[in-house]
C-alpha cells in the first residue's frame, strides 16, 4: 500500500509509516463525516443569523432562566477541556509511560473544547458586537472577567502545549510528505522551526515542555474553579455552595476521561492504530475513569446530602424539585446511569475492553451534559422573591429549536477541529513513541 502513495519515505521506519499514514490518505468515510459536520454547522449558522437579527427572543431564555443551555454547554466544554491537563501534565509529570500515545488526543480535545467554550459565550450574548466592551469596561471584581481571562489564557497554554511536542513530528512531515500541496508543506516548514533533532534542540524543547507542564496545572484548575464561581458566588439556592470548585473540577476529569476514551476508540478504528492504542490503554483509562468517577461521586454526596439533610427553605424547595419534582427523572437518570452504574460496570475487567468502555463513556458524556443543565437551570427558578405576575413562559425553560441547533453546531465545530487536526498532523506522537520503543528494545537487549 505504501508504494501507491507518493511520498519520500524510503527510509522511514515502520512506526513512522503507521502513524503518518492517516495524514497521507483521507478515507471516504472521513470525507463523509466531515461533510456531515459541515452540514450541521451550516444549519447552526443559519439559526445563529436568525438569533442575531431577531434577538435572543428566539431562545427560551426569559427573565428567570436568563442562563439556558448555552451556558450549560459552556460549562460542559470547559469541563471537557480539562482533560488535556490531566493526561498530559499529571500523568507525564508522574512519569506514567502508558499515557504517551494519549497525550496528543487529549490535548487536541482540550484545545477544541476551550476554543468553542469561548465561542459559546459569544453565542449567548445578545449584542456580540459589544464583545470588546467586556475587556474595556469589565470590572476586575467580577468573576466573569476572571473567567474570560482564564479561559483565554488556558486556550493559549493548551495551544502551546499541543504545539511543542508536535515540533519533531512536524519536522518529520516536512521531510517526508513531499506530495502534499504547497500551502501544506509551507505550513509544515514554518511550524517545524528548523527542527533538526540535534541534542541541543532537544534539550531546549524538553525544558520548554517541562515548564509548560507545570504551568498548565494551576491554570487548568483555575479555569474550572473560576467557572464554578460564576455560580457559587451567588446567594441563589442550588449555587450557594462552598464545594463548587472541587465539585466541578472532579466532574470535569470524569467527562474528559470519557471523551478521551471515545476518541481513542474512533482513532484506533479509523487509523488502524491497534498496535499503538492497545487494549491495555483502554484498561488503564478505564481504571482512571473509575477513579475520577469515585471522586466525583464523593463530591456529589457532599453536594446533595448535606443541604438535603438541612432542607433550608429555598435550598430545600430546589432539592425537592430535583429529587422528586419535575426534574427528578433527568436527575436520577444522570446520577444512576451517568455515574453509579458506570462505576459498578467498569470495576469488572471485561467492561474495560475497547467496545464496552467506549459505549459506557458515551453514556457518561451524555450524563455529564445533562448534569450541567441540571446545575445551571433549575436553580434559577427558586429566586429569593417568589415568581409572581409574570407571563406563562417565564415559569419554565424548554430550549427552542434555535438553541438546540446552535448548540449542536458548536458540538460539530469541536469535532470538526479535532478531525481537521488529525488530517494535518499525526494523532500519536511519532518521534516520542519511536524513542520509547527503542528504549524498550535497548533495555531488553542489555537485560535491564
Amino acid at each position, binding site marked *: 500500500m505504501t508504494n501507491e502513495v507518493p511520498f519520500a519515505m524510503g527510509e522511514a521506519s515502520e512506526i513512522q509509516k503507521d502513524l503518518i499514514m492517516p495524514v497521507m490518505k483521507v478515507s471516504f468515510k472521513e470525507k463523509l463525516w466531515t461533510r456531515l459536520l459541515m452540514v450541521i454547522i451550516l444549519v447552526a449558522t443559519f439559526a445563529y443569523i436568525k438569533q442575531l437579527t431577531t434577538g435572543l427572543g428566539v431562545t427560551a431564555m426569559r427573565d428567570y432562566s436568563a442562563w439556558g443551555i448555552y451556558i450549560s454547554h459552556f460549562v460542559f466544554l470547559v469541563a471537557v477541556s480539562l482533560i488535556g491537563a490531566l493526561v498530559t501534565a499529571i500523568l507525564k509529570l508522574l512519569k506514567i509511560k502508558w499515557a504517551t500515545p494519549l497525550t496528543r488526543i487529549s490535548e487536541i480535545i482540550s484545545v477544541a473544547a476551550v476554543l468553542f467554550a469561548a465561542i459559546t459565550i459569544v453565542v449567548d450574548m445578545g449584542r456580540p458586537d459589544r464583545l470588546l466592551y467586556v475587556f474595556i469596561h469589565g470590572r476586575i471584581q467580577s468573576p466573569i472577567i476572571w473567567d474570560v481571562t482564564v479561559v483565554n489564557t488556558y486556550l493559549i497554554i493548551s495551544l*502551546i502545549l499541543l504545539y511543542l511536542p508536535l515540533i519533531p513530528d512536524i519536522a518529520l512531515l516536512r521531510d517526508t510528505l513531499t506530495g502534499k500541496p504547497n500551502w501544506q508543506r509551507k505550513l509544515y516548514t514554518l511550524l517545524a522551526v*528548523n527542527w533538526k533533532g540535534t541534542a541541543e534542540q532537544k534539550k531546549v524543547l524538553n525544558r520548554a515542555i517541562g515548564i509548560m507542564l507545570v504551568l498548565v496545572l494551576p491554570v487548568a484548575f483555575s479555569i474550572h474553579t473560576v467557572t464554578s464561581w460564576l455560580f457559587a458566588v451567588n446567594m441563589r439556592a442550588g449555587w450557594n455552595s462552598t464545594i463548587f470548585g472541587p465539585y466541578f473540577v472532579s466532574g470535569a476529569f470524569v467527562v474528559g476521561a470519557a471523551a478521551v476514551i471515545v476518541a481513542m476508540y474512533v482513532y484506533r478504528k479509523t487509523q488502524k492504530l491497534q498496535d499503538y492504542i492497545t487494549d491495555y490503554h483502554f484498561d488503564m483509562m478505564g481504571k482512571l475513569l473509575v477513579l475520577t468517577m469515585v471522586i466525583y461521586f464523593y463530591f456529589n454526596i457532599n453536594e446533595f446530602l448535606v443541604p438535603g439533610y438541612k432542607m433550608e427553605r429555598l435550598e430545600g424547595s430546589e432539592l425537592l424539585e430535583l429529587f422528586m419534582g419535575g426534574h427528578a427523572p433527568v436527575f436520577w437518570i444522570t446520577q444512576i446511569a451517568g455515574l453509579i452504574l458506570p462505576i459498578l460496570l467498569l470495576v469488572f475487567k471485561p467492561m474495560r475492553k475497547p467496545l464496552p468502555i467506549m459505549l459506557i463513556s458515551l453514556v457518561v458524556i451524555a450524563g455529564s451534559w445533562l448534569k450541567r443543565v441540571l446545575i445551571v437551570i433549575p436553580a434559577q427558578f427558586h429566586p429569593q422573591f417568589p415568581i409572581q405576575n409574570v407571563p406563562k413562559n417565564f415559569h419554565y425553560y424548554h430550549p427552542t429549536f434555535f438553541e438546540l441547533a446552535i448548540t449542536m453546531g458548536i458540538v460539530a465545530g469541536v469535532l470538526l477541529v479535532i478531525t481537521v487536526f488529525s488530517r494535518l498532523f499525526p494523532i500519536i506522537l511519532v518521534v516520542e513513541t519511536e524513542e520509547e520503543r527503542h528504549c524498550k528494545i535497548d533495555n531488553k537487549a542489555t537485560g535491564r
Partner: protein
Amino acid sequence: MRICGNSIIIMLLLACSLDVLAFEPWNVPGPEGGRKNPLKADKNVIENGRIFFMNTCKACHGEQGLGNGVIKAADMTTAKFQSQTDGELFYKITTGRGQMPSFKAMNSNDLWQVIIFIRTLAGGAKQVLKKNAMLNLIIDVNKPEKQVTGVVYFMDEAGQKQPLEKIKVGFYVQRMFGLLPVGSKYTNDKGYVRLDFPSGIIGDTIGNLNLVAKLEDAEYKSADALATVKWGLPNTGLKKAERTLWATNKLAPVWLILSFTLTLLVIFGVIIYVLLQVRKIHRLGKIV
C-alpha cells in the same frame, strides 16, 4: 417552537374568556344593594375620596374614571354606571370580580368616601366646572424661622381679592423623581395658611430647596406656587467612595488588583519565556 404556538393559543383563549366575563351582568344581592352611605358629601370627604381614588383606582379606571387605564375597566362616567346605588358599588368594590380586585381589607370609611368621589365623575370630568382661585406664597427670608405662608383668594366681580377659607394647601419639596410632601394645612378665615418648614432636608450644593405649594380642593382648580428657599442643608456630595468589591472598576480593592495582575504577569511571563525557547530552537536549527 411548539410550546410557543401553544402558549399563544392559550393567551388568546384567556383574552376571549376575559371579554366574555366582562359582559356578563354582575348581580348584587338585594340587601347588599340597599345599604346606605353613612357619609355625607362634603369637601373633605370628596378630597379624601379623590386621594384614595388616585392611589387605588386610577391605574385601571383612569384619572377621570373613563375606564382607560392600563387595562380595560368599567367607565364610571356613564349614566348606566352611575345609576347603581351606593350599596351596589360598595358590594362590588369589596367583592371584586375578574381583573377587579376585592378591597375587602380596606377601611370601609375610605370606600364610602371613594364612592362619593366617584359620583363627582358623573358625565365625564369635562363637565365638572371648577372655580378659579389663586395661591400666593409669602416668605420672609430675613427671618431666622423657616416659615412659609400661603394666601388663597379669588377675584370677585369688582376685581377685589376675596379670601377663601378651609382650602387645603399642600407643601412639597422638588426632588429628583417627584415631590416630597412636607406638610399640608387648611386656610384660616383670612385665607392664610402657615407652615413651619422642617429642617434637615438636603438641598443643592448651597442648600437651596425648590418649594412647591399646591391648592388641593375639589371645588377649585388646582393652583401651584413655587419658591426657592435656602432652608436646606448643603449637599456636600456623597461620602468619599471606598475601594470595595461592589464599587466601580476604578475603585477595585488593591489586593484584588495586585493578585490579579501579578498572576497574569507571572503566567504570561512564563509563556513568553517558553516562546523565546521556540525561537532558540529555530536559531539552533540554522547553525546546523
